[in-house]
């Protein structure tokens, strides 16, 4: 089956309780989504008061955001308006904020389009930096296209301060390979609601590293759907949620094609009063497909009292012909046995703690193929750790 499972059909699973992700409809018009009141399944973990009206659509445009792109010459960077037919071709907004961002982004900046031409392997990393320079409501749109048989690494960085919503499209065409590192490194008063829609072509490869450290509230929804067989998607996530921060990640993999693979692995640490992390993982294995291989899991390390984790892995399977499908979640504190072992080798308690936490994150950070980013992320993690020692 070639059409995506999501957002295109009438309620296919009847009943009064819309519990399946297949019951979620998409639209480019915010008017088609009621204003959330916090009781909805997809909003119930998000403190709506702290969104500062981003979900309402107040038509206030008082923020300023700049978008800078740097990278090798082979990558084509354009700024285009909404009328450009390449925009919005790979996704349908699946909630109100996503639709609002689509309607409003041109009031701020044109969309940024990064194209990696076909058969091109980028020698260097492309950096896209989004900086909130004036705190206030702002919207954005980014499209990254990896043409057939190309290969690239793109770093998307959010910094400064804003009340920001955007849609990011990653289109990985047949045989291409795209690695994205999305770093949410906002100032402490920033609010971000972001959707990252990836489309993975035949035998294409998409790898995503989402690293969320800053902001007051960050809600990021990465989704993947396939446009051919043999697609491979890996979503990795790392968050360190400090006192009073809300970090929410909602991944969605839609195995709408046969012989596709996905892995989702999100790991987080929480420390400080009222630190709140949310992970919602959805994997759908579509009707009539075969040979899907998927696994999703979430791990949370709770470092102090007063934190809260909500972790919900969901799996919806509509076929018997599955290669592998699994989901897992675990949240807990540091293992006393690990700490005891290290201390028995003469390592002081504080250092032992740091070693275990570093180990928890290291295998994920180690897979990021941009060395300067690896060091920076580890340093920032250590900085946040030091706050509560």
């Amino acid at each position, binding site marked *: 089956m070639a059409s995506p499972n999501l957002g295109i059909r009438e309620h296919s699973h009847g009943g009064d309780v819309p519990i399946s992700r297949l019951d979620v409809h998409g639209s480019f018009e915010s008017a088609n989504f009621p204003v959330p009141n*916090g*009781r909805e399944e997809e909003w*119930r973990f998000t*403190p*709506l*008061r702290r969104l500062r009206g981003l979900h309402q659509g107040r038509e206030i445009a008082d923020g300023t955001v700049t978008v800078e792109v740097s990278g090798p010459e082979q990558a084509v960077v354009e700024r285009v308006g909404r009328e450009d037919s390449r925009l919005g071709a790979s996704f349908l907004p699946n909630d109100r904020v996503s639709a609002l961002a689509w309607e409003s982004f041109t009031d701020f900046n044109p969309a940024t389009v990064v194209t990696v031409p076909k058969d091109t392997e980028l020698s260097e990393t492309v950096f896209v930096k989004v900086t909130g320079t004036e705190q206030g409501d702002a919207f954005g749109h980014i499209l990254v296209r990896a043409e057939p048989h190309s290969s690239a690494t793109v770093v998307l960085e959010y910094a400064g301060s804003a009340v920001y919503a955007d849609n990011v499209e990653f289109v990985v065409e047949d045989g291409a390979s795209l690695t994205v590192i999305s770093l949410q490194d906002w100032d402490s008063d920033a609010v971000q609601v972001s959707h990252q829609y990836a489309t993975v072509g035949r035998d294409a490869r998409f790898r995503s590293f989402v690293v969320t450290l800053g902001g007051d509230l960050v809600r990021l929804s990465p989704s993947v759907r396939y446009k051919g067989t043999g697609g491979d998607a890996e979503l990795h996530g790392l968050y360190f949620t400090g006192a009073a921060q809300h970090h929410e990640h909602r991944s969605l993999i839609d195995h709408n094609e046969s012989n596709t693979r996905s892995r989702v692995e999100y790991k987080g640490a929480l420390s400080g009063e009222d630190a709140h992390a949310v992970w919602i993982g959805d994997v759908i294995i579509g009707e009539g497909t075969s040979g899907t291989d998927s696994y999703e899991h979430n791990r949370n390390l709770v470092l102090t009292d007063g934190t809260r984790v909500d972790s919900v892995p969901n799996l919806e399977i509509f076929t018997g012909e599955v290669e592998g499908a699994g989901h897992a979640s675990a949240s807990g504190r540091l293992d006393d046995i690990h700490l005891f072992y290290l201390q028995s080798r003469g390592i002081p308690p504080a250092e032992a703690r740091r070693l275990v936490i570093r180990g928890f994150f290291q295998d994920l950070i180690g897979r990021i193929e941009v060395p300067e980013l690896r060091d920076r992320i580890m340093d920032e993690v250590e900085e946040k750790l030091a706050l509560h020692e």
Partner: protein
Amino acid sequence: MSDGYTRVCSLSDVPDEGALGVEVGGTPVAVVRSEGEIYAISDICSHAEVNLSEGEVEEGTIECWLHGSCFDLGSGKPINPPATQPVATYAVQIDGDDVLVSLDTQSSKG
């Protein structure tokens, strides 16, 4: 208005054995009348994002309508799960028909 007290409503706005949701400088506050006494507590349940002022008031407690935790109006402490953390309580002054609330001072009742 001294000591950070702000007028939030008039006494007649607060129903008998009921509550009124107000905002004090962006902070949601539930002004509650129970057994003749006026209380002010945080309007957000400590368990989920629910306005306590929409719940039922009975014998010095207010019930969160969504999951059923009851909070003691004097101390802000939950009486039953799923909430485990107390909600903030605020000092109230009655000046004629005006209800004044201060976010600076915790209520000493209870």
